[in-house]
């Protein structure tokens, strides 16, 4: 399964959708700071891994897909939900990387420069989550699709499209 980018997808996102996530991110950063101020860094630290923008992102993915399908006269509610579910699967693996981020940061930041510790922790996030994602893509068992009307997972849909392109 090929990883690709679609820059034109940025045109589908409205300015207020970016603003919403910008504000949510900022609000949770401030909230984490205030909680740490009030209850100490031990409680405040929990909120550094708060899924702040995930609900907004998943909802936007779903609504964009519904609009895309609606333009073609199709009902895209189910497809939108499947794409949001695929995003959540990816987030599960990203969150495993987040554990590695926190572990590395905790180990390095007392003894090394903050910049080095943060860079190493960010690398640990990527080094942990990416291989887990690749392993899942390589080894997971995909249920066979028997009919065109059967609901497909978001990744299966991408695979089917790639397969069709190769066939033609």
């Amino acid at each position, binding site marked *: *399964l090929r*990883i690709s980018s*679609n*820059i034109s*997808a*940025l045109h589908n*996102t409205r300015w207020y959708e*970016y603003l919403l*996530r*910008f504000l949510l*991110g900022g609000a949770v*950063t401030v909230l*984490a*700071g205030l909680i*740490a101020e009030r209850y100490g*860094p*031990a409680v*405040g*630290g*929990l*909120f*550094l*891994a*708060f*899924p*702040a*923008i*995930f*609900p907004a*992102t*998943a*909802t936007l*993915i779903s609504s964009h897909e519904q609009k895309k399908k609606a333009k073609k006269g199709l009902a895209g509610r189910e497809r939108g939900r*499947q794409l*949001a*579910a*695929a*995003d*959540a*699967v*990816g*987030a*599960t693996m*990203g969150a*495993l990387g*987040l*554990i590695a*981020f*926190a572990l590395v*940061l*905790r180990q390095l*930041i007392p003894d090394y420069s*903050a910049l080095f510790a943060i860079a190493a*922790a960010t690398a640990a*996030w990527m080094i942990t*989550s990416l291989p887990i*994602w690749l392993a899942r893509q390589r080894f997971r068992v995909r249920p066979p699709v028997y009919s065109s009307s059967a609901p497909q*997972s*978001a*990744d299966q849909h991408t695979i089917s499209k790639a397969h069709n392109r190769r066939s033609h």
Partner: protein
Amino acid sequence: LVVSSFAVLGDVLKPKSFAGLFSAAPSIALASIGLAVSQRGQLYAAREASSMIWGAVAFVLYAAIVSQLLFRRICGVLMGTLLSLGVWLTTSLALWFVMAG
């Protein structure tokens, strides 16, 4: 800005399961740790990172529950992602209380 940058990455990348990795990027942590180091010092940031571990474990559970709710069509996207935040809060506080408290 850090949070928005990761969100934009998630928008343009395909497939969506790969883009999802960036939904759990350490964006809030990068912003908050930077502030904590500059205002309170590195030991304070280390204490925050210690409890962040339990928040991240709760995030794994949260995302796994959301994916199952959506794949199994138990609820809609907005409701599933928002209601499951309760799971994140309960799990992270419980883990922190048991493991560090």
